[in-house]
């Protein structure tokens, strides 16, 4: 349905997006996972025809949209990372304005506005100005504005950044509903791996402008099938302990966190004894220890040596 081919964007001699290939099949929910600055938003901007690529192509049903941007705009809804709404207009006025820009008029417009307000659960606040809304409510109207013309594909760029858990759950439920019940194709970008894990069938992991891994959740996690993740919770941080563990060739990755150390080690490595001895040497008191199943976060850590939120 939608694919990018060797998509590349260079800003001031630096490649923000570097030969990205991805595709979306109809009805799929695809995640684009990566830390801030990975190139997700630039990729989305090129797909939504806001930015012209330096090279490469974006095709919709086999036709290039670089030369014919209008062809994708009628079937594409984009929820930007920012609250792209007029703060001094009410939710209703915002939606009516964007609806008219999409070519909706009269009853058709009124019906579309009522439907999206109902979908995001803000019908009762429709006449209030956006500036009076909470962050979560603004995000919900931000989504509603992208759904007015009933697009086939919806691209959501970090739609849950900086909001309360209740609004976040509402948004995640909405995305699920759009994908499952309304059969919309979803491209969901986030640096919250748990959201992508919950919502998406397939995932692309981006870092430094490149897709570094892609596949179904299980396929990605299988990258770490030969490894265990050990979480060592300490009473106090201990840099000396982390430094010693980094020198240990049996440990593949050491990542310090405020409350402890996360280690990636070969499966059944029998390393626990060494860990306790090292902790004793550095007078580090272990509060808790458990061996985890690999998460997408671990996959990212494994692939890049960095955390998603770094």
């Amino acid at each position, binding site marked *: 349905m939608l694919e990018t081919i060797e998509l590349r964007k260079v800003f001031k001699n630096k490649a923000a997006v570097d030969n990205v290939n991805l595709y979306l099949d109809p009805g799929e929910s695809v995640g684009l996972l990566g830390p801030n600055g990975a190139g997700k938003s630039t990729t989305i901007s090129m797909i939504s025809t*806001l930015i012209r690529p330096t090279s490469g192509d974006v095709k919709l049903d086999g036709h290039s949209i670089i030369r014919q941007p209008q062809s994708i705009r009628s079937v594409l809804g984009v929820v930007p990372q920012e609250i*792209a*709404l007029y703060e001094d*207009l009410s939710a209703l006025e915002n939606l009516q304005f964007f609806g008219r*820009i999409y070519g909706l008029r009269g009853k058709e417009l009124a019906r579309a506005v009522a439907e999206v307000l109902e979908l995001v659960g803000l019908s009762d606040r429709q006449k209030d100005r956006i500036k009076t809304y909470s962050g979560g409510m603004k995000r919900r109207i931000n989504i509603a504005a992208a759904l007015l013309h009933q697009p086939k594909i919806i691209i959501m760029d970090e739609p849950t950044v900086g909001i309360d858990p209740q609004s976040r759950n509402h948004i995640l439920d909405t995305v699920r509903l759009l994908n499952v019940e309304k059969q919309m194709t979803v491209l969901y970008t986030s640096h919250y791996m748990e959201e992508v894990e919950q919502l998406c069938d397939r995932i692309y992991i981006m870092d430094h402008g490149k897709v570094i891994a892609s596949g179904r959740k299980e396929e990605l996690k299988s990258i770490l099938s030969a490894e265990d993740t050990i979480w060592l919770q300490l009473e106090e941080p201990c840099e000396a302990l982390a430094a010693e563990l980094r020198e240990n060739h049996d440990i593949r990755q050491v990542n310090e966190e405020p409350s402890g150390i996360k280690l990636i080690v070969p499966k059944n490595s029998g390393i626990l004894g060494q860990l306790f001895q090292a902790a004793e040497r550095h007078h580090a008191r272990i509060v808790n220890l458990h061996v985890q199943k690999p998460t997408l976060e671990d996959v990212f850590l494994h692939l890049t040596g960095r955390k998603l939120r770094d």
Partner: protein
Amino acid sequence: MGSFVKKDMLLMLRDRKELTILVLMPFILIAILGFALGGFVNGGTISLDMTFILVDEDDNASGKERLIQEIHDSSILPEDVKLQLIETADSIQPREMLVALLDSEEFAAVGEYTEMRLPDARKALEREEAVAILHIPQGFTYDMLKKMLLGSGEGAVIGLEGSATYALSAGILQDIMESFAYSVNFQTAVQQVSAVQGSAEGIDEALLSSNTVEGGVEFVSVNEPVNSMQYYTIGMAVLFVMYVATSIASKAYGERNQFTFDRIMIAGSHPLQFLSGKFISTVILAFIQLCLLFLLSTIVFQSFAGKSVDFWIGMLTVTAALALCMGGLATLLTSLNFRSGNENSSEVFGSLLVMMLAFVGGSFFPTSQMSEWIGAIGKWTPNGGALYSYMQITQGAGFDRYALPIVRLLIMSALFIAAGLWVFPRRREG
């Protein structure tokens, strides 16, 4: 397009800060400057240093002789009345009174005059070498005395032709001349009553308190006067209308920053549709703002009260041209903001250039108070051109007198739009 315009209108109406700048502030400034300058004119303590031309075509002596002869020859008038009238005619010297006024020390504080023939005077006025022509026509003394003493004829007329550029100074001269005409008429009326009653006692109190003493001298201005309230209503209106353009351009950049512009583009609108929306919104808002200021000033300060339909048609014509020019300016500033990726263009224009244009265009002081080259540049600024046109209309000039500035405004509008279209980025490169 209607959606863009409606949205811009709503956003502007809900922005109290902008509304204060666009409507309340000019209104307050009209009041302050209008009243302040009114006091300054009435106080007459500061030299206005205006130069005007006196065209004196009257032959005072022959006019008086001719009238005395007519009184002599009259078969209707009794002899004693004839003698009284001749005596009165001899004692009244309106032309000398006027010249004495112009030569007085008090008048020297206001300005100075040179005498010329009428054709030369008009050429000098065109060259803006003087603020006005004061015209004492042929037969002035005769016509005045005939009307005054015999009650026949149309009376005499002192004419004033003012320069539009120096409308305010010409207005001051007009006030002085009106005062002079009143004084002469009043004095004559007293002498007439004295002649009939034998003394000045018993003159009707109503005559003394009257502001409209009927007499032989009438003051007629070729140009209607412009008072300080009118001047500053126009001056502030043409200054603050430029803030509509900067405000729209800044808000447009805000749309780019807040990604609503991106959303509009994703929805399939062409960037030029967005830009056209800015043009139309500015034109409408500028038109409304100007009309509102003129209307408020008329209601509260009586600035243009009682003006003719032709006057208002003229004002609306210039207002429409100025609004179109502001639309063009908003288009250009929006494009510059988008092209440069920051708000500097509209901010610099709003904070610095507007004030410079206001100064050069004569919003604060008539350009006659400044050097000639500033006045010449001022006419080529949107506000200066519009101010000149409004002044012409306020002085009662016909369309031919303000057609050229209107054409200039339309040319400026077209140039701004063309530059805006050229500069506006069609598609973001990043």
